[in-house]
C-alpha cells in the first residue's frame, strides 16, 4: 500500500516538474531579447522607471538598454534619423508631424493619458495676468511637440492665433531657464519643466489656465516602435507590454513607493512629484479617441501650414494592435 502511494507521489511530482518546466519555456521562448529604448525623462514615463526598478523587464526575458532623451520629439527624431533605437516613448504631436513623411513606425500602445500635464506659465513682470495678455508676447515652446499643439489650442480658445504671438523654439529642458532669464515671456511645456520653471521664478510665475477652465487637450504618451523591429520581434513586444503592465499595476497598488522610485530616478524632489502625480492616468490602451486626436492635430498642422502636406494620414496604418490585444485585450477599443 505504502509503495503504491510512494509511486503515485513520485509520478505526480515528476508530472509537476515537467509541467513547470514546460510553463517556464512557454513564458520566455527563445533567448533574452535586447531592446534599445529611447525614453523621455519625465513623469509620463513612470511605468518604464517602475518596470526598470522592479526588474520586470528581466522577468520577461528582456534586456532593455535605456537611452534618456530630453523630449519624446527628440527621441523619435533620433530613431527616424537612423540612430540604433528599436523603440521610443513619445507623445502624439511628434508622431503626427512625422506621419506626413514617414510610415516606418507604429504605435503599440499608449501608456498614460493626461489632460493636465501640458501647461502654460508666464512671467508676471511682463504684464501677463490672463490669456489675452499673450498677444505679441514671446512664447517659448519646443516646436513640433505637444507643447506647440497645446499653445495652438490654448490660443484658439482665447480667440487668438499662433500668428498673434512670437514663438521661440527652445529644447524642453532649457525652457525654464529661458523663462527665468527673460528670453521669453511665457513657456508652454509639460512636467517636470513647468514645475522647475515655477521654482525658478517663484512669485513672479503665473499659471494661465485655458479659458473657461476646461480641459482642452488630452495628451497621450505612446510606445512607438520601428516597423522593421516590430515585424521581426512580435513576441518581444508582447513581453515588453507585459512588463509595462506589471509596472502600471504596481503604480495602482503602491502610489507612495512609485512616487519615491520616479523621484529618485529623475532626481526630482519627492514632494514635487507627488504634487502632480494624480494628473496622470497610467493605463495601457489603444482607443478610438487616440486616432481622432491624431487626426485633429494633423488637421491643425495643415490648417496652420506647419506642414506642406494637405491630407490627413490614415493613422490606422500607424497602429499595431496585436501585442496589446494579447496582453490586455479589453484595452484595445479601436473600432475594427
Amino acid at each position: 500500500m505504502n509503495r503504491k502511494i510512494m509511486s503515485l507521489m513520485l509520478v505526480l511530482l515528476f508530472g509537476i516538474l515537467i509541467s513547470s518546466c514546460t510553463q517556464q519555456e512557454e513564458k520566455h521562448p527563445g533567448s533574452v531579447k535586447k531592446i534599445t529604448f529611447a525614453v523621455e525623462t519625465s513623469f509620463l514615463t513612470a511605468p518604464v522607471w517602475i518596470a526598470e526598478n522592479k526588474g520586470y523587464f528581466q522577468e520577461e526575458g528582456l534586456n532593455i538598454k535605456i537611452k534618456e532623451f530630453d523630449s519624446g520629439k527628440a527621441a523619435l527624431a533620433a530613431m527616424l534619423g537612423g540612430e540604433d533605437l528599436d523603440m521610443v516613448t513619445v507623445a502624439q504631436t511628434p508622431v503626427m508631424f512625422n506621419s506626413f513623411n514617414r510610415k516606418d513606425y507604429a504605435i503599440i500602445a499608449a501608456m498614460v493619458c493626461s489632460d493636465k500635464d501640458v501647461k502654460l506659465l508666464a512671467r508676471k513682470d511682463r504684464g501677463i495676468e490672463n490669456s489675452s495678455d499673450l498677444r505679441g508676447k514671446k512664447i517659448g515652446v519646443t516646436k513640433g511637440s505637444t507643447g506647440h499643439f497645446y499653445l495652438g489650442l490654448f490660443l484658439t480658445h482665447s480667440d487668438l492665433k499662433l500668428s498673434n504671438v512670437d514663438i521661440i523654439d527652445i529644447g524642453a529642458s532649457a525652457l525654464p531657464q529661458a523663462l527665468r532669464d527673460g528670453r521669453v515671456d511665457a513657456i508652454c511645456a509639460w512636467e517636470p519643466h513647468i514645475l522647475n520653471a515655477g521654482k525658478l521664478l517663484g512669485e513672479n510665475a503665473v499659471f494661465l489656465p485655458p479659458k473657461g477652465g476646461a480641459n482642452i487637450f488630452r495628451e497621450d504618451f505612446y510606445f512607438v516602435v520601428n516597423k522593421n523591429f516590430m515585424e521581426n520581434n512580435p513576441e518581444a513586444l508582447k513581453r515588453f507590454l507585459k512588463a509595462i503592465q506589471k509596472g502600471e499595476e504596481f503604480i495602482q497598488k503602491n502610489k507612495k513607493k512609485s512616487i519615491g522610485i520616479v523621484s529618485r530616478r529623475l532626481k526630482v524632489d519627492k514632494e514635487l512629484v507627488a504634487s502632480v502625480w494624480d494628473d496622470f492616468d497610467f493605463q495601457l490602451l489603444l482607443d478610438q479617441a487616440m486616432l481622432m486626436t491624431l487626426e485633429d492635430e494633423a488637421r491643425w498642422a495643415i490648417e496652420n501650414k506647419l506642414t506642406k502636406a494637405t491630407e490627413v494620414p490614415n493613422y490606422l496604418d500607424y497602429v499595431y494592435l496585436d501585442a496589446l490585444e494579447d496582453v490586455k485585450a479589453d484595452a484595445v477599443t479601436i473600432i475594427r
Partner: protein
Amino acid sequence: MKIKTNLILLAMTFIILIVTLAFIMVRTSEYINEKIRESNAVNKITKDVFELNIITYEYLEYHGKRMQKQWLMKYDSLGKLLKAIRKEKMHPEHLPVLESITSDYKILGDSFLKLQANYTERKRLIEKKGSQSKINTSLALEKRLITQSLFKSQKMLSEIFKLSATIEQEISRSQEKVNSIILFSIIGIIILSVCVSFLTIKAITKPINKLIKGTTIIGKGNLEHKIDVRTKNEMGQLADSFNKMTKDLQETTVSIDELRATEQQLRASNQQLRASEQQLRASNQQLRANEQQLKATEQQLQESEARYRNLIEETHEIIQSIAPDGSFIFVNPAWFKIFGYTESELKKMKVFDIIHPDSLGKCQELFHKVMSGETVDSFETTFVAKNGKHIIVEGTAVPRLQVGKVIATQGFFRDVTERKEAEKEKGKIQNQLIQSQKMEAIGTLAAGVAHDFNNLLTTIQGNVYLAMLETDKNSTVAKDIEEIKVAAGRAASLTQQLLLFSKKQPMGFVSLNINRTIENLMKMLKRLIGEDITINTQLDPELWIIDADEVNIEQVITNITVNARDAMPKGGTITLKTENIIIEEKQKDTIPNSRVGRFVRLSIEDTGVGMDKDTISRIFEPFFSTKESGKGTGLGMSVVYGIVEQHKGWINVYSEPGQGSIFKIYLPAATSKKEAKIEEKTQISNMSGDNERILLVEDDEAICKFAIRLLENNNYTVFSAGNKKDAMKIFKKENGNFDLIISDMVLTDGTGIDLIEKMISNNPKLKILLTSGYLDEKSKWSIIKMKGYKFLQKPYEIHELLETIRRLLSESKNSDS
C-alpha cells in the same frame, strides 16, 4: 411485504424525485443560457451598429481614408455576425426580425458605397472645376443618401432593441418558470415524503404496539391471550412466534402450591448452607492468619538473606569457597575486582592457579588441613592477579560442614599489598634517615675535633718547617721530618674533607664560569692522571655563569677525575664536558633528582671498568671505597656529593660494569651574566718584613710560640696575647700603633671578630688577618666576607701565612703612598 423492502422502495422514490428535479433544472438552465447567448449576440450587433454610426458621422465630417477603412471593416464584421446568428438555433419567432435587420444592413452598405462614390466624384468635379449644377446635384444626392443611411441604421437599431427586449423578456419568463418548477417540486417532494414516511412508520409501529400490548397481558399471567397481527412481514412472524411460545408455556407450567412447598424446602436447605458457610468462613480466617504468619517469616528470611548478600557483595574483603578438588564454588564481587578474572575464566580455574609459586607449598598444606576439618587463623600468603600483580593477603580459612562432613573450604582474606608496600617503603625511608643521621653525626664529630685538630696540625706543620730550616737536607732526620710533613698534610686534607662532606665548611660563593676553572685545573689534572690516560674537554663557549665556591668546584672535578683515573688501570680517556640545560616540566621525570630551571651541566666521563648497581647505590656513602685498603679515604665522592648539594645542585651517575662511568653534575645557573673578577696575585719574591708591628692574638700556646718565632725570624716586631682582654690591653697601651692584627677567630673570652671590630673603631687603617681551624657559625663567615677581612684556614702553610702578611702590608703601604 417485508419492512426492508418497504424502506428500499421509499429510498428509491426519493432518488427518482430528486433526479427528476435535477433534470428539470439542468434543462431550464440550458434554455436560459441559450437565451443569454442570443442576448449577447444582439448586444454585439447593437454595439457594431453604434460604432458604424460613429464612423459614418466621422466620415461625413472629414471624409478621411481611415474612416472609410474602419467603416468597411466594421460593416464586414457586422455582416459576419448576422450570418453567424442566423446559423445558430435562433428562436423561430425572432427570425423575421433578423431577416429585416439583414435587409437593412445591405441597404446601409449600398448607401455608404454610394456616398463614397458621390464624394469622390464631387471632389473630382471641384478639383477640375466642373459644372456647379453637377456639384449641387451631388450635394443633394449626398443629403438623400445620408438620410437613407441614418434611417436604415436607426431602423436597425430599433429592431435590435425590440429583439433584445423580447429576448430579455423570454429570459425573465424562463427564470420565473424555473423558479416555479423548483418551488412546486420541492413542495411536492416534501408532501410525498411526509405521506410515504407516515405510511411506512404506521406499517412498522402498529404491529409493534400490538406486540407490546400482548406481551404485557401474557406477562401478567394470562397465557390464554393471542396476539393479533396479520401482516406477512417480520412483525407477523414475530407475533406468530410469540403465540407459539405462550402455548408452550401454558403446557409446562406447574401449580403455585407445588411451587410454594418447594420454596420452603429450599429455604431450609438454604439455612443449613448458611451455617456451613459460617463454619467455612471461620476455618478460612484461621488459614489466612496462618498464611500471614508464613508470609512474615518468609519476609524476615528474605530480608536477612538480602542483608548477608549485601554484606558479602559490598565488602572489600576477599571471600571464596573452594571445592575439595580446588575448583571455585563461590567468590564475592571483591574477589573479581581484585584478581581481574571473569566468571567464565573462574569456572575453568583451580585455587592453586592464583597462588604465587613461593606460597604454593604452604597453601596446599593449609588447604589439606582445612579439608580435614581444622580452622586456620591469621595466615599470610601471596596471590597473583590476572594482570600479574602480586596480591598479598591475610586471612582465615574454615571448613564448611554438611552432615558432619567437610564439603568445602571457606576463605576470608584482606588485601594487605598496599600496607606491605608502605611498610617496605617505610623501611627504606628509615634506612635513609639512619644514613642521614650517620652523616650528621660524622659532621658533628668532624666539626668538634676540627678546631683542635687543625690547631695541632698548624703547630706540627709550623714546627716541621722550623725544624727543616735547621736540619741538613740530606740527613736522615731531614727525611724523617719530611715524612712527618707528608703525614701532617694528609691529616689536614682528611680534616678538610670531613668538614666538606658534612657541609660544615663555609663556602665562598662568587659568579663563576666553570670553563675557566676547568682550563686552570687542566695542568694539575694532567699531572694527576698520568701519561696512560688522555683527558679531553668539550666546553660550551656560551656557558652560563653559576654562583659557586671555586675551590670546592675544583675539589669536585679533582675527586671525580682521580676516581676515574683509578678506574682505568690500563689507561683510557676522561672527557670533561660543560653545557647549558633548561629543564622544563615535561623533562623533569626523565632526569633523576631534577627540578625545573636553568642549569649548567658538568659531565665527567671515563672509559674505565664501570660499576655495578650496588656500587652505584653506595658510591656517595662516607668511607665506602672499592679501592684497596690504605689507597683511599672513602670520603672523595661523599665530599663531591656534599659540595654539589651545598651548591643547590644534584649529581647523577650512569655506569655499567665494563662500560665506563659518567657523572653528570647539575648546578643552577646564576642570574649574573659576568664572572666575578679574579684577583690576580703578583709574585712575591721577598717574604721578609720591615720591622712592621704585628699584634698576634692566639689562644693556642703552641701555635702562638711557633708564630712568634716564625714572624720574628722574618723581621717583624711581634706583640702577642692569648685572649681578647689581653689583646685590648696591649692595643691600648701601644695606642693602637700596629700595622697588622693577626687573630684567631675562636678566643676563650670572645670572638676574633668582636676584637678587631673594637680595634678598627680606634684605627680604621688597621690591617686584619683572621685564622681559624673551624668556623662553627656560618654567619661569622658572612661577616668576614662582607667586611672583606683576610682569612686563613688552619692548618696553613708557612709560606702561605708569610705571603698573606706581606700582601696585606704592601697594600697598606701602597694606599699610604
